[in-house]
């Protein structure tokens, strides 16, 4: 179904983990965390960057006038930041287990693969592992119909420090996590991780930090 008003928050939660990737309301922060009373407020940024440096992203964030990077710059002035471009109308398809938020050029989809739970007294270890994995599948599909190359991105902006997944996550995975409590990963070929003070600074044309582990905005 396609709700008349596409701007509303919805939980996207694994079964039994008391955790939710909550997003969907325009100009509002998202909440995401392993405890209801300990959720992390912050931005979710999903979109693409055109060669002129402009960001085209779903409106799930609040513009920040200041960056934590300002504390380290003194009077030397700030780094360049990527600016936001005007975006088209957001549409939403809200099904039982598939929540898709779309711009004409991209879809951001979050899945809730819910179903009956296996009986813990008799189910196999493999079935229990599959049912209780505390994870939420998502994807971003970019439709670049132009003659220019774009850079697609997915990122989070919460008041936590982040680190790379590291070798424990296996080969071919990129992503970031915060103290082993919350994180994301991708195995899409060509995806790279970034961590910076903010998404705008990470995607600035002259950004050189790449992976800056004192930053609070990771993405790929």
């Amino acid at each position, binding site marked *: *179904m396609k709700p008349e008003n596409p701007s509303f928050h919805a*939980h996207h*939660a694994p079964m*039994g*983990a*008391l*955790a939710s990737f*909550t997003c969907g309301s325009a100009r509002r922060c998202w909440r995401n*965390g*392993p405890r*209801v009373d300990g959720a992390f407020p912050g931005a979710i940024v999903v979109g*693409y960057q055109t060669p002129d440096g402009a960001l085209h992203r779903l409106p799930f964030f609040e513009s920040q006038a200041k960056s934590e990077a300002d504390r380290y710059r003194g009077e030397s002035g700030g780094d360049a930041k990527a600016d936001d471009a005007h975006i088209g109308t957001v549409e939403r398809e*809200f*099904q*039982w*287990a*598939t929540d898709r938020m779309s711009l004409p050029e991209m879809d951001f989809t979050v*899945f*809730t*693969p*819910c*179903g*009956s*739970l296996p009986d*813990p*007294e008799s189910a196999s*270890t493999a079935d*229990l*592992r*599959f049912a*209780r*994995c*505390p*994870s*939420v*599948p998502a*994807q*971003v*599909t*970019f*439709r*670049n*119909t132009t*003659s220019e*190359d*774009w850079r*697609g991105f*997915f990122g989070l902006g919460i008041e936590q420090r982040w680190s790379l997944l590291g070798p*424990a*996550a296996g080969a071919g*995975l990129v*992503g970031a*996590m915060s103290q*082993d*409590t*919350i*994180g*994301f990963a*991708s*195995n899409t070929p060509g995806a790279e991780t970034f961590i910076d003070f903010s998404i705008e600074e990470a995607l600035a044309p002259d950004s050189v930090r790449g992976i800056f582990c004192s930053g609070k905005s990771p993405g790929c």
Partner: protein
Amino acid sequence: MPAGQTVTLDLALGFYRQGKATFNREMSYFYTRHFTGLPQVLEYALSERARYLAIAAERDAELAQAPLNDEQKFLIAHATRSYYGSTQWLWDGSRSVWVGQRRGIPHDEHVRPHGGHAFF
């Protein structure tokens, strides 16, 4: 993304909490018995991604075919997500425990043996 192409970025978002997960009766998350940490959760989620998406497609078709109007379908979709976001599947050291949370209500008022609080 190269010009003229459609590209999909597959993602897994994950959570992990080791140790005691409750305030009174001592229990930990059941998933900690099968995952050593968040990196393993994310790796497993991506490796089993096709199965998870197939289940999501089954649920979508099930509700789409139900004899309900759009408002009713919306409520069910919303309520299901909210319900799962407020549940805990725990391990008390000897058996599985399913908990439905409500804010402001002590944990143990909602502790049920597994299967006693099933949504489906």
